[in-house]
C-alpha cells in the first residue's frame, strides 16, 4: 500500500513536470514568433491528389541589401515546389544553403527561385553581396 502511494506520488510529480515543460514550450514558441518578423505562407495540406491549387508566389522585397520586414519564413512539405520571388533595388545573388541553389538579381529587377523541396530540414537563404539572411525555408516531411 505504502509502496503504491509513493509510486503515485512519483507519477504525479513526473506528469506535473512534463506538463509544466510543455506549457513552457507553448510560451516560448509564441514569444519566438513575435520576436522575429515572420510572413508564413500557408501551403495547401493534403494536396497530393490531383493538381494542387497554385499558391500565390510570395515576394521578398530587398532594399539596400536588407529584406524589408525582416526574414521571411516559408513552410513546405517535402515534395512540394519551393517558389518565391526576390525583388531588389541593388544587384545581388540569392543563395539557398543546403540545396545550394543560387540566382542573380539585376539592380532594380527581380528573380524567381523555384526548385523541388526534396531535402527535409531548415535552410537559410541569403544575399551573397550583403550577406543578409532574407528567407528561412522549413521543409517538413
Amino acid at each position: 500500500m505504502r509502496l503504491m502511494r509513493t509510486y503515485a506520488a512519483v507519477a504525479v510529480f513526473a506528469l506535473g513536470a512534463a506538463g509544466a515543460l510543455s506549457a513552457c514550450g507553448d510560451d516560448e514558441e509564441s514569444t519566438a514568433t513575435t520576436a522575429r518578423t515572420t510572413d508564413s505562407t500557408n501551403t495547401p495540406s493534403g494536396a497530393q491528389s490531383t493538381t494542387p491549387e497554385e499558391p500565390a508566389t510570395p515576394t521578398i522585397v530587398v532594399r539596400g541589401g536588407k529584406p524589408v520586414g525582416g526574414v521571411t519564413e516559408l513552410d513546405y512539405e517535402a515534395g512540394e515546389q519551393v517558389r518565391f520571388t526576390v525583388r531588389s533595388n541593388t544587384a545581388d545573388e540569392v543563395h539557398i544553403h543546403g540545396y545550394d541553389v543560387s540566382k542573380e538579381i539585376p539592380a532594380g529587377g527581380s528573380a524567381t527561385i523555384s526548385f523541388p523541396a526534396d531535402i527535409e530540414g531548415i535552410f537559410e537563404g541569403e544575399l551573397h553581396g550583403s550577406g543578409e539572411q532574407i528567407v528561412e525555408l522549413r521543409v517538413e516531411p
Partner: protein
Amino acid sequence: MTLLPYAHALLARQDLPIPEWLFAWGASIVLIVSFFALSVAWREPRFEEERWRPLGAGLSRALLGLPAQILCGAIGVFLLGVAVYAGLRGTEAPDRNFALTFVFVTVWLGFPVLSVLLGDVFRPFNPWRAIGRAVGGTFGALAGQRPAHLAYPEALGRWPAAIGLLAFVWLEVVYGPSGGVAVGLSPQTTAVAALAYSGYTLAMIALFGTEKWCERGEVFSVYFGMFAQLGAFGARDGRLGLRRPFSAATRWATVPGSAAVVIASIASTSFDGAQEGAFQGAIESVIDWFLDIGLGAVAAERVADTLFMLLCFGGVWLIYMLGVRGMASVGGAPSVQRLRSGFAHTLIPIALAYLVAHYFSLFVFQEQAQFTYLLSDPLGTASTDLFGTASGGIDFRILSANAIWYVQVGALVIGHVIALTLAHDRAVAYWGDYRQAARSQYWMLAVMVAFTCFGLYLLSVANG
C-alpha cells in the same frame, strides 16, 4: 541575429523540432519505463565489480606495444599540426577549412561515441600526451633519471578539466562572431586557441607529469575517458581486456570534481540546444538589456550567452543536488558528500544521450565533408586534391527528418534507462536494506525524468 556575412559557419541545414506527438510519446515511454524499472528492481549490485578478463596477449602487444604507441602518438601530433596549419593558412570560410570540422565535429563529437564502443581510444592519439612522453623519455635517457614533478594537489581533482570543458564549449558556441550556430568561430581563432591550449597543457605536463595531468586536468583526456568508462573494453597494466559494460563507471567519480565534468557536459549541450530554441526569446531580451546599458552588439550577445551557459550549469547542478539531498533524507543514507560523488557516474549516459540527440545529424552530414573535400583540400583554397575527393560534398538526402527524430528520441530514452539502472545499482550497494535503497531511488528517478523530459522539450522547440 546575423552580425557578419557568412556567419552561419558549418551548418547549411538545421534540424526541424520534433513534432508534438513524438514529444508526447517519448515522455510517456520514459515514464512507463521508469515505473517498470521500479517494479523489477534487483537486490544485489551488479555493476560494482568489473569482472575484467584479459584478451589475447598478441592482440595486446600489437595494439598497446611501443611501436603502436609511437605510431598513434605521431598520428595525433601530425593531425593537430594539420588542423593548426589549415586554421592559420587556409581559407576564412569556416565550412571549407579543415580546422573547424576536424576539431569541433570529428574529434569533439566522434570520440565520445568511439570511446564507449572501443575503450579509451583517445589516449594513444592524444598529441600532448605523446609529446610529454617523448620529451620525458628523452630527458630520462640523457639525464639517467626520471624527470621530477610537483605533487598534484589532489583536492583539485578533475576541476581543471571541468573548467576547461566549459571554456572549450564557450569558445565554440559563445565566443564565435555569431552566437546561435553550431560553430561560430573562425578557423584562425581555432588555430590560435589550439596553440594556446597546447602551450598550457605542455606546461602543466612539465609541472605535474604526463599521466597525472592527463588523468586530472587535460580536458580531452578526461572528457573522452569519462565516456570510455561506459564501454566493455579497458586496459590494465598494459593488457587489453573485456569487462562488464558500465562497471568501470562506478569507480570513475571518486575523484573530486568528476561530478562537475559530467554536469558541465550536460549543461553545455543543453545551452547549445536551447539557444536557438527554448532560450532564444529570453536570451534576446537579455541582449537587449545589455544593449540598452551601452554594451556593443557583439559584447552584449557574448555576455548574455555566457550568463545563460553558466545558468545551465547551475541549473543542472541544482537538479542533481536536489536528488542527492533527497537520497540523504532516506534512513541509513551515507553522507551527502559520498552520495554526491557516488551517483555522479549515473549522469554519464544522460550526457551521452544529450550529445547524440543534439549533434547526430550535424555529425553525419559534416563527416561527409570531412572525408571528401576537407580531406583532399584541407586549406579550402582549391590548391590541392590529395585523395581525389575535393569535388565531393554533403548529401543532405541521406537522413530524413523522421530518421533524425527517432535517433534523437531513442538516444534520450536509452540513456534514461541506463542512467536509472546505474543509479539503482549504486543504491543497492550503498543501502544494505533493499527497501531503503528503493525508496532513495524515487529521488534519482525524479532527477532522471527531469533531465530526459528537459532533453525532449529542448528538441521539441529546437530552431523555433
